[in-house]
């Protein structure tokens, strides 16, 4: 009976959370989170700092006990059997957790031992992961000499070594430069495609969330929206089209009468929100007699979604400073080491 149940969940959700709540005294960091993550998807948990992302991920990874609610990862209750959950998940923490006095390979060997990777498979898997994350050349250098991106890659390789079903990453690209962030994403996609692993990650970078299959937007301890990036963006109401014209007044009147859209005039440019720009722009060019000099088209971003749902921009000033401080702190620690 239990076997059947396990198989059933394996076909569907890998992570299930029901009404998760976490209180710290008076403060409610997580206020009732329900979610389902499907096998093989990249699931993004998006929200500003302090929204409850790290708390939720910590509960799912069995590092924190929820005050209420329940969660299953890989079909196992995180409260009842944390050790078995841990055998089935890989973790990449927000802050570095490597021994930088050991080599990359030694870090992986250590992990293989404490996660009971069978002795006969240890070397093969370590070699495979090093190759997959392009660290083979530097495997025998001390981690101290690695760049920030290499350390992150090594942590991802380590998290994958015991063949987990889910890889959890807490802000994996925090403090990395844009190019390195891009390469981390390439690797994550590759891992998902070649290993079929489920990836659950938190981020507060909107542009990164676009790479996820599905996203949950979290604000003040609650999920305010959940869906694919396109579904979420569709909530904003359409595309944004901006044109410039040498006779803007004439163009505006014509657009209103012919196309039935009221543009907002801003200096020489006219801005309008339309349900589908793919249909609208050809009509506009075809049917307008006033000259159109330029057409700019912008799809709504996740920033627009967050703004619409919460009435605030995701990266308010406070979060921005905190980030910078964190990045500075990690650089400083890196040097001091």
């Amino acid at each position: 009976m239990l076997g059947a149940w396990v198989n059933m969940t394996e076909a569907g959700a890998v992570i299930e959370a029901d009404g998760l709540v976490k209180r710290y005294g008076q403060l409610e960091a997580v206020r009732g989170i329900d979610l389902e993550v499907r096998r093989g998807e990249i699931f993004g948990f998006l929200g500003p700092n302090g929204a409850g992302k790290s708390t939720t991920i910590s509960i799912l990874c069995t590092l924190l006990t929820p005050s209420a609610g329940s969660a299953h990862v890989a079909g196992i209750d995180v409260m009842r059997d944390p050790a078995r959950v841990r055998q089935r998940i890989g973790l990449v923490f927000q802050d570095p957790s490597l021994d930088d006095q050991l080599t990359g390979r030694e870090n992986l060997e250590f992990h293989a031992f404490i996660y009971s990777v069978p002795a006969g498979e240890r070397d093969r898997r370590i070699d495979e992961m090093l190759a997959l994350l392009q660290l083979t050349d530097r495997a025998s250098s001390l981690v101290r000499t690695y760049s920030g991106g290499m350390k992150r890659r090594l942590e991802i390789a380590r998290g994958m070594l015991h063949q987990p079903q889910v890889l959890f990453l807490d802000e994996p690209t925090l403090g990395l430069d844009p190019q390195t962030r891009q390469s981390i994403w390439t690797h994550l996609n590759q891992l998902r495609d070649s290993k079929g692993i489920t990836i659950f990650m938190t981020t507060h970078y909107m542009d990164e969330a676009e790479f996820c299959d599905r996203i949950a937007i979290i604000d003040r301890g609650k999920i305010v929206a959940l869906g694919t990036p396109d579904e979420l963006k569709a909530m904003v109401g359409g595309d944004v089209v901006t044109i410039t014209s040498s006779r803007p007044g004439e163009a505006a009147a014509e657009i209103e009468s012919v196309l039935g859209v009221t543009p907002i005039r801003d200096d020489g440019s006219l801005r309008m929100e339309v349900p589908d720009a793919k249909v609208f722009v050809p009509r506009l060019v075809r049917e307008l007699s006033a000259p159109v000099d330029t057409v700019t088209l912008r799809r709504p971003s996740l920033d627009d979604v967050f703004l619409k749902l919460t009435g605030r921009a995701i990266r308010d000033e406070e979060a921005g400073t905190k980030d910078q401080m964190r990045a500075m702190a990690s650089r400083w620690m890196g040097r001091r080491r």
Partner: protein
Amino acid sequence: MSAKATSAGAAQSTPAAMPVDIRMASLRAIYIIWYRDLLRYWRDRWRLVASLAQPLLFLVVFGSGLSSALGRDSLFGASGGFTYIQFVYPGIIGMAILFTAIFGAMSIVWDREFGFLKEVLVAPIDRWAVAIGKALGGTTQAMIQGLILLVLAPFVGVKLNVLTVAELIPLAALLAFGLSSFGVALASTMKSLQGFQVVMNFLMMPMFFLSGALFPLTNLPGWMTVLTRLDPASYGIDPLRRVVLSDSGRSSALVERFALTINGHVLAIPLEAGIMLAFGALMLGIAVLMFQRRD
């Protein structure tokens, strides 16, 4: 595993099947935690050299200086049977063990500060494995450090034969184990590096000075007698000294003039070893409890 659950036909059988796995994993974890500490110790040659420099300085400069200052009428000198350098030599071995053991075990604080401890604590192992692995790592490092100092014996006029060394190894191991466990217990209560300096100045230095490493623990003022007997290191260093000195061909009565006493009774070496072992076990127990609290 799911096959097992199905054949047993009951949900309760699954958690019951697990502890064996976790226990094996924990034993492996003890080994790899110990191995990592040794690897780091071995790799950090400068620390190894630096940590030998201090005992040498004590032995050669402090020892020689004090030897000439101590008159013929003192416990040392020709009438005493032993020179001060001969006396202080086992004490210096004890000192090397004391510092290396506590420092080695307290590397946990560094692991916590630089994040590596997290990797260990989230692994699917029991937390006692972390405390034991660290305690054994500190013990081994301290043993190596202490045994390296044995090669200096000929230079201080101490004659060592194979049997003496064979007797010294388990005694040194007990001292190292007791103090490493103490270090792990201390480290498990510390959340940051700030506390480290405090421990260094207010615990390790007094422990060293009161341990009988530098002077005999006889004819001391009352308050100091009490403190020296409360110092666990005393019970580890005293047997080292007695074994080293008794090998120099002098009578055991001469050796016992330096021995640790309680109420004027000389403690037997096996009793001292037992005290050290009990202290180590107690400390390790505390460390395990501290680690098992989920934070």
